[in-house]
């Protein structure tokens, strides 16, 4: 059931000449005196999968968090799904309805069951009837291969299962865009794969995705484009193959050598 919902939604989403899903134009941000984002220009097309990588402190998480305004930017323009991010609360609500987010530390609601975690936003934000919301949630839990965990509490699940619940929770809002902020960084190695597999599944269904990750295998497999950030700016971007095998800048070369040594 869940799969049919997604394919229907995605089929309408993939349009070649559609306006971009995400536009960042000259975005600047400071934390106090610290200049964390410098003149970021980035367009993400509908249905595109973008992987963002870079050393820690390079601003990649901050950038992705600006897209649903968990952080505010101070200069430039961010347009998501045709809506510009401003201080206007209505535009913010509209954007958060269309953008799903998955966090490094899962951030599930520990006092609610897995099912309630998934149905909360559809019921309260989308005003969906409870029965329908549960049906949708079970569909996505099924897709995430954890249908049997629906009645449990998050604390009873493994890290990999929790992260898949978090993905299902975001999907239940039927977002047009999914943001992933280092989704596998807090996981034990044997659980990384189960989460990446479900993300590949999502990518194959044509979801617009922006993923901050160091998983180069994942980037190679699903990314249309890899964006390399360092010290708050986008240093290099391109297809995964060319980025990984033919880096142009010293900074990217250094980063890749460090990443590869680590593996």
């Amino acid at each position, binding site marked *: 059931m869940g799969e049919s919902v997604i394919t229907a939604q995605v089929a309408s989403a993939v349009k070649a000449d559609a306006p971009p899903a995400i536009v960042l134009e000259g975005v600047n941000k400071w934390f106090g005196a610290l200049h964390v984002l410098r003149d970021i220009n980035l367009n993400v097309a509908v249905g595109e999968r973008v992987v963002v990588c870079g050393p820690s402190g390079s601003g990649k998480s901050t950038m992705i968090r600006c897209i649903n305004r968990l952080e505010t930017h101070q200069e430039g323009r961010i347009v998501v799904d045709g809506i510009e991010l401003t201080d206007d609360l209505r535009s913010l609500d509209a954007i958060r309805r269309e953008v799903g987010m998955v*966090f490094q530390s899962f951030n599930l609601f520990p006092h609610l069951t897995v099912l309630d975690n998934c149905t*909360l936003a559809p019921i309260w934000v989308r005003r969906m009837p409870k029965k329908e919301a549960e049906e949708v949630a079970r569909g996505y839990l099924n897709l995430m291969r954890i249908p049997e965990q629906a009645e449990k509490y998050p604390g009873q699940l493994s890290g990999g299962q929790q992260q898949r619940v978090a993905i299902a929770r975001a999907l239940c809002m039927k977002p047009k865009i999914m943001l992933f902020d280092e989704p596998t960084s807090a996981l034990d190695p044997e659980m990384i794969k189960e989460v990446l597999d479900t993300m590949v599944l999502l990518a194959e269904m044509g979801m617009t995705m922006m993923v901050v990750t160091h998983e180069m295998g994942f980037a190679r497999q699903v990314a249309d484009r890899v964006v390399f950030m360092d010290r708050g700016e986008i240093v290099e971007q391109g297809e995964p193959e060319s980025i990984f095998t033919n880096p142009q800048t010293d900074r990217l070369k250094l980063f890749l050598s460090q990443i590869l040594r680590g593996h």
Partner: protein
Amino acid sequence: MSDITLDAAARAPEAAPRSAPITAIGPIAWARQNLFGSWWSTAVTLVLAYLIVRWTIGFVEWAFLNAIWEVPVVNGQAQTQACREIKGVGACWAVITEKHRFILFGTYPFEQHWRPALVCLLFVGLYVVSAMRRFWTWHLVPIWAVTLTVIGVLMWGGVFGLPYVPQERWGGLPITLILSTFGLAMAFPLAILVALGRRSKLPAIKMLCVLYVELIRGVPLISLLFMASVMFPLFLPEGMNIDKLLRAQIAITLFAGAYLAEVVRAGLQALPRGQYEAADAIGLSYWQKTGLIILPQALRLVIPPLVNTFIGFFKDTSLVLIIGIFDLLTAGKTAIVEPAWQGFGIEVYVTIGVIYFVFCFAMSKYSQDLERDLNRHRRR
């Protein structure tokens, strides 16, 4: 690697589980380990056991064996000579037998005592219903509204053929229950709002809440009660008068609110930022986020200090005696002013202590159960 473990497990003959030897578990082993582990602990055990036994025997003799439960009353005067003779040897429970209605209901008209008695029962019923989680729905609001109205009607009277009883004549247990129930029921929502306000991004709201908490917390409850009872009427226009009990009630509510607000704020701060962000990211509004995600978790975390404060305030209501309101403790004190009963404070205070203890212990016990039930999700 997993194959090897499986094989080994399959081959090894399974040892039948057998219970531990009697010397390792059970009360004897426990006593040997904890009470007679060394010469030193044996000595302490024996001394304490002796003291406890002696004290218990003494108490039982005083409270039960040598006690006098009733004294003759001649011409409305209690004859307490018998009590005076056994003073120090036996308790004179006759003071309770004679005076319990005054202690419980103060100067409320004697023939109308069934009304405050019913009020106390209504309060207890209200607590029991509110404590049951299956009643935790919107039904509680009308239940509270109706019960409190009935309580008001019973206490004041003046309608349905009940004679009017002015507030000055109320006293005893109903006063204690009214002050603490209304006080905490109003202080708790106030505390939540103030705690949220202290974390608000709007500077004016934040300032106001900080000011409220710091001002109220920095002043003893007694002086707040004094202000409410003595100073406040000075500023009112001539002829306008607010009920004394109501003023005390407001003072207690404000005081409890400031303390509870800090407890609630502790809970809010204990939640990881990720919970706020996740709630934002799925598009919940501020009040949805607060009501569905933040408060349910924050309040669970602070159940122990919340109940601590509740219990503290239940007992602190006895401070209203300084502005001349007859709560349970004051009524007890007044009961032994009469010459015949002078000197029998111990019996009265023990009895009042037991009444306070029953209420406080019930709160404490209930909070433990609640904590266990609500935090089930944290167990694996």
